[in-house]
């Protein structure tokens, strides 16, 4: 057999095995030793203590307070800090906090914890990676796209770099609209090349798809519904509005050197026209904001991101809100009326947050900090003892934090994170990261991604429950394994059973057990029965991971 020839002698294999084992033990020891040495973020109170920051938050709070009063609702109380940081980690990094991070947080002064947590997350590459993926779904969708000329990964990683540098959001969007060159060297070009249909006779990017993306993703306007004909049932848009906007992309063409402004102007054949005619470049609203000179796409980018084009700021606020709450302020996330009416007023907070975003030069991190500081974000999703539980009306008016089902990558990320005492981030060993991405990919496939349709709330499914109860990811992450799994390490290192149960709850559900839960599991751990302690600890992990609380944002 050929394999015999290349197999090393037995002693070499034994040596190799020993080395691997030692490396494993080394990893455990070093992990245990460094468990209290998480690097502190460069946290500056100036980010959120300036009076104008507080004023914005107060104004938003006042609007919500008057909304609740009008609806006759008494809001829930403020949630505890651990609940809030779990929401932030899930929304911004797609995973839950680690035990080590929770300990570091709890060493901070109480009134600073939420903002300190944001300082911590903004320095963590997981945040920019995750935000980039979530935004990319709106920009380019989830499809693999055209072969060779579209590199989704490169696009997402470019976007992550932009977010990490906290580049002003209007600048990021301008880069996308005006992108030129090759999709490999200028990753933002992929925003344009993703629309190339390689099987149509027409070469080059698709103006119609680009116009639809620009209006939906950047402006929160759904103008593409009138692509084919005027809607005579009262839609505010006309068919020509759409095609005149698409015309800004008319000259963008595919050349040897990538996307260039060398194409022919955009032509379209309306009904009752015999031949296609060139369509002028006209924006559908606020034409006074459109610069007269410049290349078509540059003019369009200036118009989209103009500080007086409030649709741009509103759309961004709505999307960031949705990422943090699991549900947008205005539904659907990409359809916000250009003007409010007495019958259909804007929801509380939207205009103030949009103003703040514009005044502070489209600073995304600031927007996230402001939203995190509002009382609406801080509310509990349940009521304190003695009060009637929150109703659907509370949900509707943001008088209690709305429950939303976690996305598949959030569930996978949380399972994997719960099995580690320290954060699995860019600093983790590459094998951990690699392992995470492989396990995560397989899990997501089976859990079922809902694609671009991001903020549509639906209940759980049978395959999801089977995967969580019987699947290999959960099984591997809860079984007795002192090297790989937190379950075993907590059991081996915690000084007593109370601490075992507490650390397990913190690692999995980011909270401490209630008195009843504590009693139940303490009793279970100490009771003699047909299971040993390791099995009982695995079962505790199993129960927590299979709970509603674990699979939902709350």
């Amino acid at each position, binding site marked *: 057999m050929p394999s015999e020839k290349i197999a090393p002698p037995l002693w070499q294999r034994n040596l190799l095995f020993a080395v691997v084992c030692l490396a494993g033990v080394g990893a455990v020891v070093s992990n245990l030793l460094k468990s209290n040495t998480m690097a502190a973020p460069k946290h500056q109170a100036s980010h959120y203590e300036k009076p104008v920051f507080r004023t914005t938050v107060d104004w938003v709070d006042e609007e919500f307070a008057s909304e609740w009063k009008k609806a006759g609702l008494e809001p829930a109380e403020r949630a505890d800090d651990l609940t809030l940081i779990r929401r932030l980690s899930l929304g911004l990094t797609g995973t839950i906090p680690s035990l080590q991070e929770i300990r570091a947080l709890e060493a901070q002064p109480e009134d600073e914890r939420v903002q300190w947590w944001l300082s911590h997350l903004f320095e963590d590459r997981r945040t920019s990676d995750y935000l980039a993926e979530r935004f990319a779904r709106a920009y380019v*969708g989830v*499809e*693999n796209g055209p072969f060779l000329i579209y590199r989704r990964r490169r696009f997402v990683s470019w976007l992550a770099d932009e977010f990490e540098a906290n580049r002003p959001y209007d600048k990021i969007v301008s880069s996308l609209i005006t992108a030129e060159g090759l999709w490999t060297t200028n990753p933002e070009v992929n925003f344009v090349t993703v629309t190339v*249909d*390689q*099987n149509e006779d027409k070469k080059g990017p698709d103006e119609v798809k680009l116009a639809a*993306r620009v209006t939906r993703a950047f402006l929160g306007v*759904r103008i*593409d519904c009138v692509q084919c004909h005027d809607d005579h049932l009262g839609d505010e848009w006309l068919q020509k509005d759409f095609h005149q906007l698409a015309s800004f992309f008319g000259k963008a063409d595919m050349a040897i050197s990538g996307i260039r402004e060398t194409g022919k102007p955009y032509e379209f054949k309306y009904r009752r026209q015999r031949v296609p005619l060139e369509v002028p470049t006209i924006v559908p609203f606020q034409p006074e904001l459109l610069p007269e000179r410049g290349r078509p796409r540059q003019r369009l980018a200036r118009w989209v991101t103009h500080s007086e084009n409030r649709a741009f700021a509103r759309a961004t606020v709505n999307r960031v809100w949705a990422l943090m709450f699991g549900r947008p302020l205005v539904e*659907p996330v990409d359809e916000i009326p250009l003007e409010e009416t007495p019958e259909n007023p804007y929801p509380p907070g939207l205009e103030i947050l949009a103003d703040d975003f514009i005044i502070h030069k489209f600073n995304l991190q600031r927007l996230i900090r402001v939203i995190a500081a509002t009382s609406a974000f801080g509310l509990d999703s*349940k*009521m*304190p*003892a003695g*009060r009637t*539980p*929150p109703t*659907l009306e509370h949900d509707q008016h943001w008088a209690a934090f709305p*429950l939303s*089902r976690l996305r598949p990558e959030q569930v996978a990320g949380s399972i994997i994170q719960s099995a580690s005492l320290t954060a699995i981030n860019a600093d983790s060993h590459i094998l951990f990261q690699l392992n995470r991405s492989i396990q995560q990919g397989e899990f997501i496939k*089976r859990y*079922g991604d*809902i694609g671009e*349709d991001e903020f*549509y*709330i*639906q*209940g*759980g*499914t*049978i*395959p*999801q*429950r*089977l*995967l969580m*109860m*019987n*699947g290999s990811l959960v*099984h591997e992450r809860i079984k007795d394994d002192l090297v790989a799994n937190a379950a075993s390490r907590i059991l081996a290192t915690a000084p007593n059973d109370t601490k075992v149960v507490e650390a397990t709850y913190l690692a999995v559900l980011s909270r401490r057990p*209630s008195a*009843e*839960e504590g009693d*139940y*599991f303490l009793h*279970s751990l100490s009771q003699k029965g*047909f*299971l040993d302690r390791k*099995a009982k600890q695995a*079962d*505790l992990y*199993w*129960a*927590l991971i*299979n*709970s*509603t*609380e674990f*699979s*939902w944002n709350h």
Partner: protein
Amino acid sequence: MLQATGLGGLAWLTPMAHWLGRAQEKASAHTPAKSVIMLWMAGGPSQLETFDPHAGKTIAGDTRAINTSVKGVQFAHGLPQVAEVMHELTLVRSMVSKEGDHERATYNVKTGYRPDPTLIHPSIGAVLCHELPDAEMDIPRHISILPGQWPARGGYLGSQYDAFKVYNTNGRAGNITARVQPKRLDNRLAALKQVEQSFARARRADLDAKTTLHNATIQKALRMMSSEQLSAFDITQAPAKTRADFGDTQFGRSCLAAIQLIGAGVRCVEVTLNGWDTHANNHESHVSQNAILDPAFAALIRELRARKLLDQTIVICAGEFGRTPEINPASGRDHWPTGFSMALAGGGFRAGHVHGATDPTGAKLEANDKDSIRVADIHTTIQHSLGINHAKELMTPILRPMALSDGRVIKTLLK
């Protein structure tokens, strides 16, 4: 019932009664089908090397043709067993679509709609489960065996209509066996109950029933884990001869499982055969692909007939598009959505029927050519023969009403 007996009793009296009796018989033959098996040829098979050979023409390369059980109808040489059941099939040779990208075209053929950025349309199996509910089933009614890259989805109907994915057919389907003994599982569930009580406190009483469906779904999952219907996933109990007929391949075994599942009451089973994207070495690849497809597809038809399931089951054998008549420099064929083949059988479909033809020189078919059938038309025709009102509009989450399908019923394909 009374009327039927009455007519039967009078049948010997008048020719009219005889005629009425025949009409009744005919009507029962038209009882709508109630399930679907979709053999998904992922990658897009070449019509020229499967169901639409133009032997002797330049576009055929050196592909030979063989006769089938229907006079005048020929297949490419790689499908001798399917050729023997051609008299059970409806063969459409003039499918046209506008989608030449794998992902978009797969979406198109599986749902009947072109991709739309505002919503996801449900696949045929999801529509079927939604329109023909059945409370008796413990196991999922929409199943995808060997799911490819883009398995059938529930789309706007909700993820509970997604196909349940099965990755092997050697015994129990994945994730339906508890990792621990029953006694320990009870312990785990008791612990879970403790955590759930804690979460439910101070929350809406109907939160689980109306919103999360969490514990309701766990109960369904547990019911499935202990159901006798699970044996339908397991083909190891089928006679060795039957298993051999389907071919010793994953795909063949999955086709047998599909029959068992349909027999157990499952509405729609999708079975994927990958490997048809033959941009290089088209002919060699089709020889090996056909060798897998041929016994499995033929045995599927024969076995459905033998188990008296064919009349109530529509079988579809299709990929996302066909392949170019022109052979490229790598001896491959590229994507060709303008004139490809689809084989159907069972339900109300006409047996031994061929519809449409492609040009022997390889010219494109246009959507408005007389015999062209658009993807939407196939969906509408299938829904029609399942007794589903295809024009029925459902309200989607974006508040846009959407018809179940927007094609026309192609009457000539049906009995």
